[in-house]
């Protein structure tokens, strides 16, 4: 392919102003932690540290509940899915119409009541006391630790990714990344880990661990309140910006009707001259012309990392746009002066590194290399200098150097010549318009890590195209993103499984009284209405504003925040908008950290190992456990799991399959007993896990679970758990009368009141 046919272009960048906004937000979080720590000095430590002294008012309770539930998934995974599959995500989250009333109302009043009767401050406490069974309590602790550990690692990754997007073009951050990269190289460890990710992970983890350890439950709640406000304000700002920038929702949906899913592929990049030190070109675009003269437009997945000393970069993931109107629109956008200027700034950086490489070689050459090499290097060096001068001129005085489109076609902009080596179509919806506005929604196929080649001799030479599968011409709904059975499953997933999350149950144990509960349910209902459906609208608009991000859609939220604000010249706002997903992750992580440390200190240590422990010991252990859990999660996230949203779905549905059935029976059925509830918990866990394990054999990945009749494992897990609890309870002896009387009967209530 001739070099002149390629158009490398860069993505937008965040400004320092965004960083300042973001730092102000982080400082506020620490301020709240300090205030919470002062409260800790005045009240009963354990109850205050882990449960906020059961004193949460309406706003605190409503927003901590909403913010904890709206995890990193809501602001990273969910927007990513909307972007990838379109309007069908409205049905995917359909049960959010009743999530607030279900998640808070199904268990809220009763679990708070039962926890007060026994003095329970954790979920395992409730189960242990309700049945007077230490073994049941320990089983609950084990399951919480098992699932939360996975989830915490995934959330740490989400927080780091968001931070990375915000900071990627901030000079101080790039300096820090370079410093860490040198440290890694010197120490010879963590070579496989991306330096930018590592810096962000450390910053994120240190911030969250410190404020959670320092302030305890109230710090978590107050920061949740602030984070909850940030989230809704972020969405409210983004919605009109997105709508105005796409020309209205009618226009946006009309465009989506014409859209066909992109092709995914792999490409190979070749440089004429290597770089003295590595450089990342942020998500460049390039165009190729096929033999029929048709222009094809590709976007590179993530930054194109060019390592020092290398001239060939293999198997770079790319997305090819396939909708004619989208390609034209993107070409026009890429020819805007700002985009071209940003590209040239990056290209100039690459040229400087190439010059540095030739300088190094020329200096090293004095003692020995062939004169012919030296001559060629000097020629390269002069050419690169000329190109750099021209680029610098264009950057400094864009008005004096001719038309923008001429700049795009200039040879000197081609820092790396691309060749597409592999392309494949979507598994469902390929080549068909209208897929983004109907069900079941388009579904990408898994891209291989390396381009399949017939033999090594053919490596990277020409583009190969995946043979269409026999079914790709048909539209079998079960191949799409959300077939009917999965739509039903997700109605269970959010509303019912949301009720079964131990992290939500803890919050339900912390509100002050029933008027607080009633008002909080109403508040959360309005809150969710303001967040979730608008998110669907915003990220459907993202398909028009930021095409080609299909392979890095986890970054669509922060990228959209930066794009929307920089398009209206308000870059500082990006900090606030990116703070929204960051807040969502933080509010989930801090709650999970505290849940895990409470499980260790309260449920394992105090209630099983050392009931005589003094408050001072408990206090020290609580701080230590929170710190340790955070550090372990940080270490786990250094080599991050790949499937963020999948892990969140796995742990969320697994916890519900284990806890919801036994908890509902424990709270609402006087006949419930230990054998029944323990069996139900284990059966839910086993059924859910076995479907995931089966998936790893049948579908080739643990995170593609086996689906009985196409239903998600959550439905099977819940069914098995409820049925087992009921049947085993019926087959075993009734619980002791005094326990039933204590938790279900009025005379016991009166007796408690008299004691009070």
């Amino acid at each position: 392919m001739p070099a002149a046919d390629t158009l490398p272009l860069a993505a937008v960048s965040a400004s320092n102003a965004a960083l300042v906004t973001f730092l102000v937000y982080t400082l506020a979080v620490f301020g709240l932690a300090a205030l919470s720590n002062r409260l800790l000095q005045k009240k009963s430590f354990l109850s205050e540290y882990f449960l906020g002294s059961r004193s949460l008012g309406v706003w605190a309770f409503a927003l901590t509940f909403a913010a904890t539930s709206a995890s990193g998934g809501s602001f990273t995974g969910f927007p990513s899915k909307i972007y990838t599959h379109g309007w069908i995500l409205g049905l995917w989250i359909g049960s959010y119409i009743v999530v607030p009333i279900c998640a808070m109302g199904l268990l809220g009043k009763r679990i708070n009541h039962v926890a007060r009767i026994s003095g329970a401050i954790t979920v395992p406490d409730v189960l242990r006391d309700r049945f007077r069974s230490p073994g049941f309590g320990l089983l609950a602790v084990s399951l919480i630790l098992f699932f939360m550990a996975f989830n915490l690692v995934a959330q740490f990754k989400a927080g780091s990714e968001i931070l990375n997007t915000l900071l990627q073009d901030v000079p101080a951050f790039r300096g820090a990344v370079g410093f860490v990269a040198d440290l890694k190289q010197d120490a010879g460890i963590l070579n496989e880990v991306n330096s930018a990710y590592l810096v962000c992970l450390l910053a994120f983890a240190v911030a969250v661990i410190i404020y959670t350890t320092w302030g305890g439950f109230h710090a978590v709640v107050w920061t949740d309140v602030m984070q909850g406000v940030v989230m809704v304000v972020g969405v409210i700002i983004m919605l009109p910006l997105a709508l105005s920038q796409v020309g209205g929702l009618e226009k946006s949906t009309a465009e989506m009707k014409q859209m066909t899913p992109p092709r995914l592929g792999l490409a190979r990049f070749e440089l004429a001259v290597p770089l003295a030190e590595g450089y990342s070109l942020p998500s460049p675009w390039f165009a190729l012309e096929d033999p029929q003269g048709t222009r094809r437009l590709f976007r590179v997945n993530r930054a194109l990392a060019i390592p020092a000393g290398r001239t060939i970069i293999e198997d770079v993931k790319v997305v090819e746009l396939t909708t004619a109107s989208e390609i034209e629109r993107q070409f026009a956008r890429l020819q805007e002066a700002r985009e071209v200027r940003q590209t040239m700034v990056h290209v100039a950086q690459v040229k400087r590194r190439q010059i540095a490489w030739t300088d190094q070689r020329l200096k090293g050459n004095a003692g020995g290399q062939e004169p012919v090499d030296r001559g060629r290097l000097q020629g390269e060096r002069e050419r690169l200098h000329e190109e750099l001068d021209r680029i610098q001129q264009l950057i400094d005085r864009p008005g004096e150097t001719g038309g923008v489109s001429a700049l795009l076609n200039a040879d000197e902009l081609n820092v790396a010549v691309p060749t597409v080596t592999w392309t494949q179509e979507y598994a469902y919806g390929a080549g068909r318009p209208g897929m983004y506005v109907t069900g079941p929604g388009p579904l990408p196929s898994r891209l291989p890590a390396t381009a399949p080649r017939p033999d090594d001799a053919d490596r990277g030479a020409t583009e190969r195209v995946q043979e269409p599968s026999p079914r790709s011409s048909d539209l079998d709904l079960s191949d799409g993103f959300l077939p009917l059975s999965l739509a039903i499953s997700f109605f269970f997933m959010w509303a019912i499984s949301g009720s079964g999350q131990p992290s939500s149950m803890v919050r339900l144990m912390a509100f002050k009284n029933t008027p607080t509960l009633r008002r909080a349910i109403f508040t959360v209902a309005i809150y969710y209405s303001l967040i979730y459906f608008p998110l669907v609208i915003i990220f459907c608009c993202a398909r028009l504003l930021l095409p080609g991000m299909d392979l890095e859609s986890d970054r669509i939220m922060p990228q959209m925040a930066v794009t929307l604000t920089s398009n209206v010249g308000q870059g500082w706002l990006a900090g606030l908008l990116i703070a929204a997903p960051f807040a969502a992750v933080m509010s989930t992580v801090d709650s999970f950290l505290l849940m895990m440390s409470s499980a260790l200190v309260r449920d394992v240590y105090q209630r099983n190992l050392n009931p005589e422990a003094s408050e001072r010991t408990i206090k020290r252990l609580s701080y230590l456990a929170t710190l340790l859990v955070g550090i372990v999660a940080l270490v786990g996230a250094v080599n991050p799991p790949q499937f963020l949203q999948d892990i969140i779905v796995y742990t969320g549905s697994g916890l519900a399959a284990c806890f919801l059935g036994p908890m509902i029976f424990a709270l609402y059925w006087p006949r419930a007993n230990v054998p029944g509830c323990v069996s139900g918990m284990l059966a839910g866990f086993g059924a859910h896990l076995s479907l995931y394990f089966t998936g790893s054999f049948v579908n080739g990945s643990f995170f593609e679970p086996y689906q009985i009749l196409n239903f998600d494992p959550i439905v099977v897990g819940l069914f098995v758990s409820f049925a087992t609890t009921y049947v085993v309870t019926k087959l075993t002896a009734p619980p002791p009368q005094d326990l039933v009387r204590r938790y279900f009967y009025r005379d016991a209530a009166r007796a408690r009141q008299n004691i009070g």
Partner: protein
Amino acid sequence: MASSAATPPPDAPVSGGQRAEYDPVFLHSRREAIVIFVVWLAGLVWAVPYCYVNGYVGNVEPESVATVWGIPAWLFWGIAVPWLAADLFTVWFCFWYMQDDDLGAAPEEESDHDDVGAAAREEAR
């Protein structure tokens, strides 16, 4: 409600020659939970079939999907409008239906010292 609370269950424990009554907080919570479950079921029964019949390929021509205010019509009537209805129901449920109950006091609220720890010590003994 109050009447059901007054009716002792047949297997209720006997105290002072009289059958004990269920705790009203338990009864109110259970009744409210049932209403909530029915609402969830109603949402499921409306939203999923409506969206499937009116918005899935095979039942509708993808390129000619109707819209309401830019939202595909199947999603507008299947999810957006029920969302509004669910919010209205929530208002009614929270402000007119749900009972205010006395949830009682936790052990640590009844004294200044850390009774949570005391409970654990007592249990261990």
